[in-house]
Each structure stands twice: as structure tokens, then as C-alpha cells.
């Protein structure tokens, strides 16, 4: 019979093997249908574009990357900025930032209010926030479209009350896209902010009042600093899908008010410039990654600190 230490070693080896076998299906699926394709896309971005979509394999070219911002004119042999692409980039960043700020302004008071409810009603409020988060994004965007359209409820109400006499064009504007983005991603702000407020020690607030702070000062100097990780998490969670949004700008922005997601998709449809599309995708991914790194730096730094 083998001695116990040897058996223990064998058990450990078997456990390590079992861990990898158990993880394999999930990891392989994600490698195959999520992570791997991203790597393939990186390769596509440095290939010559094919005539009818696709790429010409083996023909290395940086044209896709140059085309992100520059355009080469073969007639007068000049290179100029692609204003259209630049506009879409700037609009995407602007819309994503404004969406994040709006979600913060609405989401923080909402989360604070929920966190200060008694336990039973708190859980019901949370459910009310969670349901829209899990309901179909397309359906919710449709709902906003229904409200804002020329024959929609908002225009009808305004006409009926005599504020205007013919419908306002609200759809297919940046404003409509913004409203849609805030509407769709607001729960992503409320939930993490709520989570950090729930952990907050409200005796700190009482101590603040005890030391003659006003309501505003308590909010500014006690509440907001102690839920800062939640505010940052919420901001990142809203910013990332907002800057990568595709459905919302497509439906509410129409053809003109594109965001990066739509520009990318265009290269694989009418544009037939796959290398450019791939390069644009990677650029978007890079922006998202930077936002994530900022977030991880912020939370990792706070993790070790005590208090808060």
C-alpha cells in the first residue's frame, strides 16, 4: 500500500487535473466564440481589403488603420482628415460622457433614497430597478421611439395642450439618442451606487450632523466620499456600453446621427471595407479598455485602504 504522503500528492494532482477539465468547456467556448475572434479581427485589420468585402489574405497593409482618420486622394495625391469618421468619434465620446453624467445626477439620489428605505421596501424598490435592466434593450428602445415619434404620445400631448401646433421632430436627433441611452443604461448606475451606499455606516452621517454639518455638507464630505467606489463603478458600467452602443443610435438616431458602433457595422455592409471596420472595432475596444483600467486602478487602490 502506498504511503499517505504519496496518496495525498496523487489526490492533489487529480484535483488540479479535475479543475482544468471542469473549466475546459466554458473556457473553450469563450475562446472559440468570443476571445479568439477578437484576435482574428486584429489580423484582419492589417490586411489589404477585398474587392467585395472580406480581405485579401497575405497582403499586409496598414490602409485599414490609416483610413480610421485619414483619406488619400489618388488624383491630387494629398492626404486629408476624414471629417465624417472624426465627427462620429467625437459624437460617441460626447454622448457617452453626457449619458454618464446624466445617469449620475439621476441615479445617485435614486440609489440614496432606496438605500435609506426600511429593509422590506428596499428589496421591492430594487426589484423595480432590476426589472428594466433585464428586459429587452430593443423593446425599451422601441418604447422610447414610440414616445418621441411625430405621432407619439409626447407630441400629441404637447399639441393637445396647445404648447405647439405641429409635431416637433424629436426622433433622429442627438437628443433622442441621449434620452435613449440614459433610459436604457440608468439601472447600471443605480445598482452599484446602491450597493456601496448599503455598506455605508450611516452613523457617520449622524456624527456629521452632531458636528454641525449642514445636509449639503454631510452629502459632500461624508456620503459621496464613502460611496465613491460605487459612483466610479456605476460610471464605468454606463460609459462602456454607451460608447459601444449600436441599437439605440440606429433606431433613435436614424442614418445621420451615427455612433461608433454604427460606423463599424457600416464597413461590413455598404462600405465593404473590412480592414477599416476591424481597425475601428479595435479602436473602440481600446477606449473601453482604457476606461476599465482606470476603473480597476481606482478600486484596487481603495481595496487595501481601511475605513470607507
Amino acid at each position, binding site marked *: 500500500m502506498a504511503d499517505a504522503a504519496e496518496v495525498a500528492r496523487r489526490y492533489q494532482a487529480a484535483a*488540479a487535473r*479535475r*479543475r482544468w*477539465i*471542469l*473549466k475546459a*468547456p*466554458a*473556457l473553450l*467556448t*469563450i475562446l472559440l466564440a*468570443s476571445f*479568439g*475572434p*477578437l484576435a*482574428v*479581427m486584429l489580423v*484582419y485589420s492589417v490586411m489589404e481589403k477585398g474587392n467585395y468585402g*472580406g480581405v485579401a489574405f497575405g497582403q499586409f497593409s496598414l490602409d485599414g488603420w490609416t483610413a480610421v482618420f485619414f483619406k488619400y486622394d489618388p488624383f491630387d495625391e494629398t492626404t486629408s482628415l476624414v471629417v465624417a469618421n472624426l465627427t462620429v468619434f467625437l459624437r460617441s465620446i460626447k454622448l457617452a460622457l453626457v449619458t454618464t453624467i446624466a445617469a449620475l445626477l*439621476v441615479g445617485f*439620489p*435614486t440609489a440614496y*433614497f432606496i438605500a*435609506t428605505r426600511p429593509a422590506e421596501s428596499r*428589496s421591492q*424598490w430594487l*426589484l*423595480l430597478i*432590476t*426589472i*428594466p435592466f*433585464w428586459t*429587452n434593450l*430593443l*423593446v*425599451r428602445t*422601441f*418604447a422610447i421611439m*414610440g414616445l418621441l415619434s411625430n*405621432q407619439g404620445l409626447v*407630441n*400629441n400631448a404637447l399639441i393637445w395642450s396647445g404648447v405647439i401646433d405641429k409635431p416637433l421632430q424629436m426622433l433622429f436627433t442627438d437628443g433622442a439618442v441621449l434620452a435613449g441611452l440614459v*433610459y436604457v443604461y440608468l439601472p447600471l448606475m*443605480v445598482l452599484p451606487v446602491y450597493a456601496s451606499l448599503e455598506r455605508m455606516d*450611516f452613523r457617520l452621517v*449622524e456624527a456629521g450632523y452632531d458636528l454641525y454639518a449642514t445636509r449639503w455638507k*454631510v452629502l459632500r464630505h461624508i456620503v459621496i466620499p464613502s460611496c465613491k467606489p460605487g459612483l466610479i463603478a456605476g460610471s464605468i458600467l454606463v460609459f*462602456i*456600453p454607451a460608447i459601444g452602443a*449600436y*441599437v439605440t443610435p*440606429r*433606431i433613435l438616431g436614424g442614418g445621420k446621427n451615427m455612433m461608433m458602433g454604427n460606423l*463599424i457595422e457600416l464597413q*461590413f455592409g455598404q462600405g465593404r471595407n473590412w480592414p477599416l*471596420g476591424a481597425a475601428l*472595432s479595435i479602436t*473602440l*475596444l481600446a477606449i*473601453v479598455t482604457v476606461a476599465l483600467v482606470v476603473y480597476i486602478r481606482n478600486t484596487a487602490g481603495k481595496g487595501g485602504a481601511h475605513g470607507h
Partner: protein
Amino acid sequence: MATKPQAFDPKSQPGFGFVAGATIVALYLPIIVLVAFAFNATSSLGIWGGLSLNWFIKAWNNQQIVDAAIFSLWLALVAGALATMMATLAALAMTRTAPYRGQTLAYALINQPLIVPEIVTAISLLIVFSAVKATTGYSGAGYLVLAHTAFCIPFAYLPIRARLEGMDLTFETAAADLYANPWKTFLHITLPGMFPGILAGFMLAFVVSLDDVVITELVKSGGQETLPTFMLGQVRRDMTPEVNAAATLLLIPSILLVTAVHLINRRK
């Protein structure tokens, strides 16, 4: 008359209750309006013409909608089940163990689909799958199942992992002490213990698959319309409350399942 002194509530902030109330109204009003107009008697999406079930009947008789609904449900069931199984196995391997090499990497990989914008994943899948389609000639539902399974895994993984981490390892130790071999221990102790997590994981995966539009739209082949991609296709047409009826049907499973998950989590 003297005013009654009001108790000072240190937690309350002026106006926050109003904002919270307005948020809930703003979150639900558009959906309620959308659902309401599915019951409109006329074809208007802005003027109420009386109550009727016409649009639901019309949707029911629209073969495109019925086919899309059936395919959506089938896809969500298959991908949700696969993702839940894989996530369960992965969670078993990755929780309640001493830290080991490769753990962080595996964890990052599991959550990778959550981080990348959907359109980017969709495009990269389009690139890869179109190459595979061209070489193999296969254009079945396998691509959609694979893609949906992949992005459902992190959603299924989340509640299963949370449940497992809350489970005390001494239950398994006690079972081993009482003559249960590792397989029986898993069957009689671990599996029943983690079941609420698995159930919640499956429901979330199901909802996430049912909701997806971007990846499906770019990966699907002919005849693989789901309810969301069908609705997306209707945007530029003359829209009638028929779409609202379809949307209403799509809302029902989401709301039911999310409420169920909420109740499961609360009970533990």
C-alpha cells in the same frame, strides 16, 4: 397655532425621494405606453382608439412572428442550458479552492464577453463565421448556439459562483465522513446546495439570450430570424401596433424570470 416639531431624520436628503419616484415613473412609463398601444383598436401608435386584441391576433397569424418567436425560445433554451452547464462546471473548479496558478486568467476569460462592446463581438464573429461558412458550407443554427452560449456563460456564472462561495465546505466534509464517495457527495450535498444558484443562472442566461439583437443580427443566416431581429427589421417600415404586440410577448418571460430570480435570492 404652533407647528408640530418634526423629527429630524439624519438619513433623508431633500428632493431625493422625488427623483427616485420620477426615475421609477420614467423607467416604466414608456414600457407601459408601448404595451398599452398593443391593445389599441386602431393602427395608430399615438392616438388611443379603444381596447382590442386585434394586434395580438394579427401577430399570432403572422407566420414570420410565430417562427421567430419559436426560434427565439429554442435558441434561448439551448444556449441557456449549455451556458448554465458550462458555468456550473467552471464554478465548481474555480471557487472554494486554494489560489492556484492560472485562476485569475481563467476568471478574466470567463468574464471577457461582459467587457467587450456587443457590436465588436458581433463583427469579430461575423468575420470568423463567414470564413467558416465559406470553407465548410455549413450555415445551420450552430453558429448562433455557439455565439449565444459564449456570451451567456458569464451571466450564468455570476449567481452560481455567488451561491457556491456562500456554501460551507464542511457539509461536503461531513458527507465524506459519512461514507459518501466524491460523486455521491456531489450528487447529494453539493448539487442540491447550489441548485438555487444554478436555477438563477439559467434564468439569467435565458433572458440574456432572448434579449440579444446585435450579435444575432450579424451572425444569423437566412431563416434564422429571432423575435428581436424581426422587430429590428420592422423599424424602417410603416410600424403598426403588431410590433408592440410582439414586444409585449417578449417582455413577459423577462419580467417573470427576473422576478423569480429576485425571490430565489431573497429566500436563501
